[in-house]
């Protein structure tokens, strides 16, 4: 039991034929052959023990799948630019800010600088001040900065 479908590559490009064949390759045997001009013959052969009714369904499904894949290809081509723009936008948004090319060092800092007072001991920063107590270098530095 077999059926041959001849399609024009102008109507159904080769990638459409391949896509439809790939969907049905586990349900029937598919063989492609070149014909005159830009036509391709698709031969579908029933697998063993498949009833005729079932095979007819497979053939019909294959023809529908050809249309489905052709439309899919058309929409893919139509929306290619929009899809690319969305992907570019998504990738650009995911870029860390450090990769932004405006790498201007606004405040060149020395490694000894401590603008946030991180090096100041807790006692000096928050503890009660004792009169006459010597202040640390960091505390002096902080006061200078303030």
């Amino acid at each position, binding site marked *: 039991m077999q059926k041959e479908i001849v399609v024009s590559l102008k109507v159904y490009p080769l990638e459409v034929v391949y896509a439809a*064949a790939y969907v049905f390759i586990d349900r029937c045997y598919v063989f492609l052959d070149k014909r005159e001009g830009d036509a391709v013959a698709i031969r579908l052969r029933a697998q063993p023990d498949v009833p005729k009714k079932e095979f007819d369904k497979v053939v019909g499904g294959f023809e529908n799948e050809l249309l489905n894949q052709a439309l899919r290809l058309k929409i893919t081509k139509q929306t290619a630019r929009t899809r690319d723009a969305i992907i570019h936008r998504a990738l650009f948004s995911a870029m860390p800010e450090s990769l932004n090319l405006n790498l201007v060092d606004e405040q060149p800092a020395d490694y000894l600088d401590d603008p946030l007072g991180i090096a100041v001991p807790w006692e000096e920063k928050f503890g009660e001040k004792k009169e006459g107590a010597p202040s640390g270098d960091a505390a002096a530095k902080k006061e200078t900065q303030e």
Partner: protein
Amino acid sequence: MMKIELNKSLYRVAAVREAAASFRELATISVSASGEKIVVTLAHPAEDVELKPLCDEFLNHALAATIARRGA
């Protein structure tokens, strides 16, 4: 013995060779490319293996490998 001719614009030689390698334990398969055709010969099937269904399975395998290689 069965001889099949495949069109090079529809099947890739590398894919057909890959299929032949996969089926080598089931039959003697030779692949040769000449001009626009790929000629495949299947002979001496293994015990309990029928040549016609084997040929159909081989063609499906070659087509699937071709599609996979094209990235369709």
